[in-house]
């Protein structure tokens, strides 16, 4: 009995310690001011692997999610004879919720796990410590560009996701099911506010991008440098990022749209 309580307490302590380590790690990464001449090419390389290469999965998922929303929304709304409101429903769902959240989940799976595995393997093959031997700060050289790349790429991906989803919804709603195109866009424009809905969605995706990139690089940097350690760090990245995104989404939604 006492042993169980002790192990419970130990896991609580470990949690607090790892949160503290992650915070110190983040402070270390952000405190180093990157020099534009050397930092910029590194950032571009990471933006390519984190952002551009994630574009395909984001566009395809956005298209299908928009099309499914169109189909489901039409079925439900046509019961009330108000299928013209489908544009409003699709746009608000995507811009406020599904755009940032689904993109962040895809981002954690597609880019976050790759970041963790890459950094973890660098640690296991002692590339990070050899950088340190050469007098190069691995936090600044390896970690910072990856963190910033995730931070920058995520909102761009979420915006593209929302746009493609709205277009996919139009494909199903207007071109296939025959909702009048004018009322699709008109209802949408009447109900979506740029600052309340679009900008808040972008703020959400910035927060999610930051959290996902932070978890991914920290898990990679902190992993046990063995093959089993890298695999468990990669799993942890995806699990923790997904949970953090969904939990934060509730908090952000309550703050942004809760009206209190």
């Amino acid at each position: 009995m006492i042993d169980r309580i002790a192990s419970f307490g130990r896991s609580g302590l470990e949690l607090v310690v790892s949160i503290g380590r992650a915070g110190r790690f983040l402070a270390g990464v952000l405190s180093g001011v990157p020099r534009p001449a050397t930092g910029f090419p590194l950032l571009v390389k990471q933006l390519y692997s984190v952002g551009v290469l994630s574009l395909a999965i984001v566009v395809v998922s956005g298209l299908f999610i928009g099309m499914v929303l169109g189909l489901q929304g039409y079925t439900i709304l046509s019961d009330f004879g108000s299928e013209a409101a489908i544009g409003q429903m699709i746009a608000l769902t995507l811009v406020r919720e599904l755009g940032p959240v689904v993109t962040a989940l895809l981002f954690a799976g597609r880019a976050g796990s790759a970041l963790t595995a890459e950094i973890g393997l660098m640690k296991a093959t002692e590339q990070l410590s050899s950088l340190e031997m050469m007098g190069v700060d691995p936090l600044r050289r390896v970690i910072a560009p990856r963190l910033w790349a995730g931070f920058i790429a995520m909102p761009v991906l979420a915006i593209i996701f929302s746009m493609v989803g709205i277009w996919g919804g139009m494909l199903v709603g207007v071109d296939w099911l025959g909702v009048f195109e004018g009322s699709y866009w008109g209802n949408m424009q009447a109900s979506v506010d740029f600052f309340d809905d679009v900008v808040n969605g972008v703020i959400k995706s910035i927060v999610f991008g930051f959290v996902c990139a932070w978890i991914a690089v920290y898990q990679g940097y902190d992993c046990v440098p063995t093959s089993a350690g890298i695999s468990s760090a990669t799993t942890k990245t995806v699990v923790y990022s997904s949970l953090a995104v969904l939990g934060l989404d509730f908090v952000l939604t309550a703050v942004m749209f809760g009206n209190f």
Partner: protein
Amino acid sequence: MTQRTSEITVGLFMLAGLAALLFLALQVSGLTPKSAESTYTVYADFNDTGGITPRGRVSMAGVTIGSIESINLNTETFQARVAMSIHGDVDNIPADSAAVIRTSGLLGEQYIDISIGGEMDSLEAGDTFYSTQSAMNIERLISNFASGK
């Protein structure tokens, strides 16, 4: 992958993001870039505003001519005072026109319709509509009908 190629693709990626943001702003949220368009404000007092909201539509003969700026309670008359901004090019609304709250369709959103009067003078900025007609409230309609009034 050379540095140059990845720079170009990242540039295109950022441009695609900007284009998508522009699409969300202009096409989805209906944000118009001509924000400096001249408008003037007129007021109307309603007994019951029903479900109209700020940024709602103000129309005349079905054509949108402005939007609802704000809805406040006038604590002296206990009526709702609605401020509407009307497009500057619609500057000849007859002074005896009436502001009527209508519903588009059976379940659609409510908007303010301006029924045109016949007077030669027109409403100026800051004027108040002389006659208004409040939102049709189905519950009140039914209770009036049931009590035989």
